[in-house]
């Protein structure tokens, strides 16, 4: 069998037949279904609520980490002062 099936002068469908397949309402329906689905399965990185939550968690963790670090550094400086006094 060849690479192509070449038809010569084959009659094409009539305008009425072509028009029978035309359905704009169906196109809009398919478009809405597809866009609604895309909206419904929006990726997390595009979700503002999710991004806001991640930001809040990050800020809280950062605050905890900074305060812990401050506590540690003040504790070690107190220990150092005591050690120096004992000497």
């Amino acid at each position, binding site marked *: *069998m*060849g*690479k*192509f*099936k*070449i*038809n*010569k*002068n*084959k009659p*094409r*469908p009539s*305008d009425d*037949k*072509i*028009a029978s*397949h*035309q*359905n*704009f309402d*169906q*196109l*809009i329906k*398919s*478009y*809405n279904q*597809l*866009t609604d689905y895309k909206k419904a399965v929006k990726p997390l990185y595009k979700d503002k609520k999710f991004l806001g939550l991640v930001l809040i968690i990050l800020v809280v963790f950062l605050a905890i980490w900074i305060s812990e670090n401050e506590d540690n550094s003040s504790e070690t400086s107190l220990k150092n002062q005591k050690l120096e006094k004992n000497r």
Partner: protein
Amino acid sequence: MSNHQTKEEIAREMEWIQASRSDPKHFSHIYNKYYRKIFLYIYKRTDNEDLTADLTSHVFLQALISIKKYEFKGLPFSAFLFRVATNEVNLYYRKTKSVRSINIEEAEILELKEELHLDKTENIEDGMLKALENLDEKEMQIIELRFFDQKSFKEVGYILGMTENNAKVKTYRILDKLREILNQRFKA
């Protein structure tokens, strides 16, 4: 299949496109204007009415989805639709691995014959069809667009994703190839 459009027609189309971006219902103007053309374009390449109806729906759906990204490049919107249609047809043949159908009319063969400037032209039609079978898919698509669909080189390039100049160079190379095949056939 003449594709010439006046500036007013192109401007009107741009208004429809702009309106479709905010409300897809305005796409009906484009849909009604081009449905038949796209249907016949696909039918020539598939030879199956139901499949053509299915692929045509896909083309308009894809076009509507990507209308927000559409940029005017000096060609009517139909060029964009033909590009999407070509991709849909290619995708179908890639998936199904079936033999490509090509519908040619006698007038189109004669046009191609004129372009080839052959030494001998008697009983050329059968030889021409056999010669076309020697082309690969990409080459056949260029010939179809340029000579059977009467597209400009700019449109051929845009539809197949190449520059206008590249489309021109490739077309003349394919014509050389066809001319050589046909002349050899006549000598033999």
